[in-house]
């Protein structure tokens, strides 16, 4: 008696039998036949040949039969367009049926028949149905507009259906509103520039009302739509949040996550000191935790989103570590995500618990999971300094288990721990060396070799160990070969007497027997370096290494902001902006979080940043984690950055050369790996200068400008530093002199002056003019206490008395060790000048840019971690208007004033420069400068632990850029 019998009719002649049955006079037989047809269709059999016969069954009073025929039509109309016309009349008639169920069914089915010829006939019935008295029909018709748009967009626009749809947003029935929103959102996705969902406070209010009464699915559509709105002020923002918060208690997890998205976005606008802000933060944690008790698939999506949320607002879940503990029978994809979040939440307070868990995981069965757990222990050591010792001992315990892959992972992470805490845990090296033979993975071998090379002086048999690797040199992966080469050179520099043979062996292996250009070139470099100047070689190869930063694989701030606006979507699962991967979303608008209420300038609307969004999208460059041990050594030179954009305005060959190098170094740093970064950067520089090193750059010498050699010859460091920006020909900006003390007030003494930073020294430069009738002498100067402790570094040197109508130029170096008092504005300076006549007081403002010190360039990783570390409320955003520079020129200009560009990223034609500067009192200011080609308005976001300097720094930016 069941339907499974329909599956068994697979014999030949089936179609003929069905045909006969479909044309039978008996209603019952007809229905059975249609059922059989549907069943065949469901399992993918082709029954399209029966089209005319099935359509004949359509005119019936039997609702089930009608529905079945409709089902069939939807499936096959496309392949039989001419036949499908036959059905049109019935549809039109059904649209007038007194029963609203039939009307809705007809309009719904018609929309699903994706045949152009039919769509024309659909317009009239659809128009009627959109205005139907029955809301059930209206809501079905709303979806039908979206279907029709998918088939023929032009038709929908011409017929004015979009306007009707917009009117439906104000419908009295919440379900109709929800469907209208859903339909409009879908249409808007393929229609980037149309202002379909024009959100204003009135529509928002209607949506919020409908939100309470529509179905769970409707709530998702409405919440996603709300998330695109930018409230006018923090009060509106708060009132929306208040009305959305109850959705956090919904049973449908998709509703919950969409509500979280709206709240995370609108929260940005709330003042942090508001009570409600704190309440909201507290309310966000429980629903997120609850998502983790749902089915594993839901957990996975939730965890991917939580990963974003803890990066943006770690405070929400900081007490919920335990819910991320891994259960033995969680699916692997849930386990791995949980582990990731555990590390992000790890702090001094909970590290003991976390470590105990990680140790437990490291003994589980699943290899991938165990590996990640071992790595996680290493990341904990690097993140929480207090735990490092315990982590190392845990890792040693794990090494003792002798489980092969555990040992290998442990060695890889211990290498990172050595990098982070040099000269602290080297006592474990002996244990590591015991396991040398069991290592068979390139990464682990390379890590071990690095350790042996780095600590060669402490390992008695380092030469033997390295020699043992050398035997199968050609079978090793490139990673290991490169590392082995470097390690043996290190060893040689440390113990030159015993290892000469070894180093010669490896150099010849690398240079003569290898086909790998990277390896060969590195071999040549070392060889030449060692043979020309061993002292320089030592300086280069054994140079101090930069410390590695705390957190790896953080998402870049701008990308994170965008992803926060996309919580709950595929983008949030893949941690990529939707434009990067969703097909068919032509010209997706980039979303940005609204600025906080506290920021000085106007709040940026979410789309201004990319109003002219270009479809051609550069793949998002997430700052790479420091995973691989050895990157390409020579990619600086192999890929000459000849196309790094137009030369800066004050060009000339020299500038061109520097620009080239800057770009090249940037890209080098971009995909550089850790351990030998310094030595290689320097090597890269040195290489350019030695013309004999043809092999590596054979392809590119023409690309190098003539002046390239000039800076090179001045030494290794200069070249590197040039890229880094010190010693730019353009000096720091210094404003023109202004009159500080008019003669009227100074009893005849006029003082005009300015400030400047020259060669790292802050100077006050003054012109003293005597406009009185008598001679002036005995000059002295004193500063009042000021924000940065500026004080004269010596007495005012005016040696000769100043006769009437005479002027004198005085330059006085300043230091910053004077007494400090906060001034308003911050850069205000009160000065007293004394002469034989009187004491005069005046105040002036110095450009803050002269307080930026030369060593204000932050390490890339440190920058990333610091940026994340500084609370968001310290961020402020400013607009610089009418600045006609491209990003490179701007970067150069800013570098002249010690504002250093650390990284650059281009998204949709918009350049983002990440910059850092350091004030004389040690305050770091981090900045993100967004420059849109062709748009003279720049956006600067400043982050600083002392947010009060932001306004002032911004003025500094403005003056530097505009002069």
């Amino acid at each position, binding site marked *: 008696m069941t*339907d499974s019998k329909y599956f068994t009719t697979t014999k030949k002649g089936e179609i003929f039998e069905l045909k006969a049955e479909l044309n039978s006079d008996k209603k019952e037989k007809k229905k059975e036949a249609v059922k059989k047809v549907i069943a065949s269709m469901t399992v993918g059999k082709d029954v399209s040949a029966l089209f005319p016969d099935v359509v004949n069954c359509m005119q019936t009073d039997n609702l089930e039969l009608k529905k079945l025929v409709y089902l069939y039509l939807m499936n096959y109309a496309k392949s039989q367009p001419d036949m499908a016309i036959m059905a049109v009349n019935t549809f039109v008639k059904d649209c007038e049926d007194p029963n609203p169920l039939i009307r809705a069914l007809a309009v719904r089915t018609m929309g699903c028949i994706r045949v152009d010829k039919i769509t024309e006939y659909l317009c009239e019935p659809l128009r009627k149905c959109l205005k139907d008295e029955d809301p059930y029909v209206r809501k079905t018709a709303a979806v039908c507009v979206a279907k029709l748009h998918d088939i023929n967009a032009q038709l929908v626009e011409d017929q004015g259906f979009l306007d009707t749809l917009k009117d439906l947003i104000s419908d009295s029935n919440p379900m109709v509103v929800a469907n209208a929103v859903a339909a409009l959102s879908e249409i808007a996705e393929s229609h980037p520039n149309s202002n379909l969902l024009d959100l204003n406070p009135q529509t928002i209010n209607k949506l919020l009302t409908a939100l309470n009464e529509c179905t769970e*699915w409707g709530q998702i559509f409405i919440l996603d739509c709300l998330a695109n709105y930018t409230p006018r002020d923090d009060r509106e923002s708060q009132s929306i949040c208040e009305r959305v918060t109850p959705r956090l*208690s919904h*049973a449908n997890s998709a509703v919950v996550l969409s509500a979280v998205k709206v709240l995370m976005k609108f929260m940005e606008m709330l003042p942090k000191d508001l009570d409600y802000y704190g309440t909201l933060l507290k309310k966000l944690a429980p629903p997120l935790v609850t998502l983790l008790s749902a089915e594993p698939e*839901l957990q996975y999506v939730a965890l991917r989103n939580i990963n974003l949320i803890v990066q943006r607002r770690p405070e929400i879940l900081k007490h919920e570590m335990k819910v991320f503990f891994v259960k033995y029978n969680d699916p692997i994809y849930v386990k791995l995500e949980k582990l990731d979040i555990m590390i992000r939440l790890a702090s001094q307070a909970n590290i003991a618990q976390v470590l105990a868990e990680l140790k437990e995981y490291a003994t589980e*069965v699943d290899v991938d999971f165990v590996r990640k757990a071992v790595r996680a222990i290493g990341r904990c050591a690097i993140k929480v300094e207090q735990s490092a010792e315990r982590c190392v001992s845990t890792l040693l315990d794990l090494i003792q288990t002798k489980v092969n892959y555990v040992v290998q992972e442990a060695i890889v992470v211990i290498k990172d721990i050595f990098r982070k805490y040099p000269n602290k845990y080297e006592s474990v090296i002996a244990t590591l060396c015991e396991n040398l033979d069991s290592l068979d993975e390139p990464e682990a071998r390379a890590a071990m070799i690095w350790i042996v090379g780095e600590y060669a002086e402490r390992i008695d048999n380092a030469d033997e160990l390295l020699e043992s690797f050398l035997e199968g040199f050609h079978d090793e992966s490139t990673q290991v070969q490169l590392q082995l080469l470097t390690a043996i050179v290190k060893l040689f520099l440390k113990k030159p007497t015993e290892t000469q043979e070894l180093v010669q062996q490896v150099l010849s292996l690398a240079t003569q027997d290898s086909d790998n250009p990277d390896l060969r070139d590195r071999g040549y470099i070392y060889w030449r370096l060692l043979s020309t100047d061993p002292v320089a070689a030592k300086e280069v190869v054994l140079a101090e290494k930069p410390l590695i930063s705390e957190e790896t694989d953080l998402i870049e701030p701008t990308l994170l902001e965008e992803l926060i606006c996309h919580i709950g979507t595929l983008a949030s699962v893949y941690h990529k902006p939707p434009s990067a991967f*969703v097909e068919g979303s032509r010209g997706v608008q980039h979303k940005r979080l609204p600025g906080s209420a506290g920021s000085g300038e106007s709040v940026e609307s979410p789309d201004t940043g990319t109003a002219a969004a270009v479809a051609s999208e550069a793949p998002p460059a997430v700052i790479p984690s420091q995973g691989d041990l050895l990157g390409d050594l020579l990619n600086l030179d192999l890929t000459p950055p000849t196309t790094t954009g137009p030369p800066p305005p004050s060009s000339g060959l020299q500038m061109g050369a520097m620009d080239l190098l800057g770009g090249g170094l940037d890209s080098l740093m971009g995909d550089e790996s850790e351990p030998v970064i310094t030595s290689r950067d320097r090597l890269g520089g040195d290489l350019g200068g030695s013309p004999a090193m043809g092999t590596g750059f054979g392809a590119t010498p023409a690309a190098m400008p003539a002046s390239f050699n000039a800076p090179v010859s001045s030494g290794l460091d200069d070249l590197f530093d040039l890229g880094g920006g010190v010693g730019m020909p353009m000096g720091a900006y210094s404003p023109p002199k202004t009159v500080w003390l008019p003669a009227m007030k100074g009893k005849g003494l006029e003082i005009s002056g300015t400030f400047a930073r020259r060669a790292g020294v802050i100077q006050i430069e003054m012109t003293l003019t005597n406009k009185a009738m008598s001679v002036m002498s005995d000059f002295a100067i004193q500063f009042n206490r000021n924000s940065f402790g500026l004080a004269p570094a010596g007495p005012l040197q005016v040696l000769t008395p100043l006769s009437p109508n005479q002027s004198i130029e005085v330059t006085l170096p300043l230091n910053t060790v004077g007494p400090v008092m906060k001034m308003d504005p911050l850069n205000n300076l009160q000065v007293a000048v004394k002469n034989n006549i009187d004491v005069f007081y005046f105040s002036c403002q110095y450009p803050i840019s002269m307080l930026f010190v030369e060593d204000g360039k932050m390490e890339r990783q440190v920058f990333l971690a610091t940026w994340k570390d500084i609370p968001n409320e310290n961020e402020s955003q400013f607009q610089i208007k009418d600045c006609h520079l491209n990003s490179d020129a701007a970067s150069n200009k800013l570098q002249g004033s010690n504002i250093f560009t650390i990284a650059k990223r281009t998204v949709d034609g918009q350049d983002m420069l990440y910059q850092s500067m350091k004030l004389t009192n040690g305050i770091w200011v981090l900045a993100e400068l967004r420059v849109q080609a062709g748009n003279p308005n720049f956006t600067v976001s400043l982050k600083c632990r002392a947010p009060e300097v932001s306004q002032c720094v911004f003025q500094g930016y403005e003056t530097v850029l505009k002069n």
Partner: protein
Amino acid sequence: MIHSLFLINASGDIFLEKHWKSVVSRSVCDYFFEAQERATEPENVPPVIPTPHHYLISVLRHRIYFVAVIQSEVPPLFVIEFLHRVVDTFQDYFGVCTEAAIKDNVVVVYELLEEMLDNGFPLATESNILKELIKPPTILRTMVNTITGSTNVGEQLPTGQLSVVPWRRTGVKYTNNEAYFDVVEEIDAIIDKSGSTITAEIQGVIDACVKLTGMPDLTLSFMNPRLLDDVSFHPCVRFKRWEAERILSFIPPDGNFRLLSYHVSSQNLVAIPVYVKHNITFREGSSQGRFDLTLGPKQTMGKAVESVLVSSQLPRGVLNTNLNPSQGTYTFDPVTKLLTWDVGKINPQKLPSLKGTMSLQAGASKPDENPTINIQFKIQQMAISGLKVNRLDMYGEKYKPFKGIKYMTKAGKFQVRT
């Protein structure tokens, strides 16, 4: 929105496909099969799989993969929630959700899918409404239909779909008016080697079966509503009232539904109702291991712990076991290395134990991993969180309903590490 749906059974056959927009070739599932092959266990297939032109979002329920195909940016949770709703509906209609049941009712399945989604937009997912549109198959109805030629399809507009209470159908009539509430709590816990609790949390639900005539308006209050700070409600619950008075006020759907689910987090002190004493050891160089397990009740407020089932995945090196249960039966599958012990009820006077030896492969080294013990149990008449219903009142109707409330505690993911 959701483009297509494929149902795939455990052996990798696509046995049903449904397209709501244009037809997507079933070859798109090849990407899913690839992922399935890579996964070691069926449940390890990642839920979101990208393909060049589509995204596959899948859930695994009742050993059937429900694979949805989407083409544009769609919230994955929306898709997953919908797929779960499909599974629940099938279960509701056919009693079980198996390949056989779906094939047996393929036409109803197709009609249901058609009603649930329109062009990828959810249409009717409430069981009440669906049942008005398409009557669930019963043996009697199938017989009647065959004889009379009538159909499963309802003739009227699903009235509930448009009212302010879309979850309740109108004109409900019962001779016996009754309302039952089940408070069911599942305790998820991880207990470490030494027996101390690493994490323990409670997932609670209140499932209701309400068969009341007309439009009853119910209020449910608790003795200790303070426990419920993390709750998800059925849409029928008036949220404002809960916020203000901590009282559940609602017009219930007709029949079975989940009124609310709640979560008591690990930050509260969660009582652990059973303890395990274990000693599972392997000696280096010996081909024998010792296995010793004793269960006992703890913090059960005097209630009996029943339906206890212990399972553990023993290390791969274990060839066989020779164990002696003091009660119940145990099995060991030498292929999957899964040990299960059906204990039954725990008698506090005579604690159940399972003791004996495990034989290892001769000459194999001592296994590295420590088996984790999973425990399932039930405790009737108790909610472990201490949640208690205070009273249930009905307004809006004149009759006196019969009211009942039941409590139960179960083990969720209750794991003991050794």
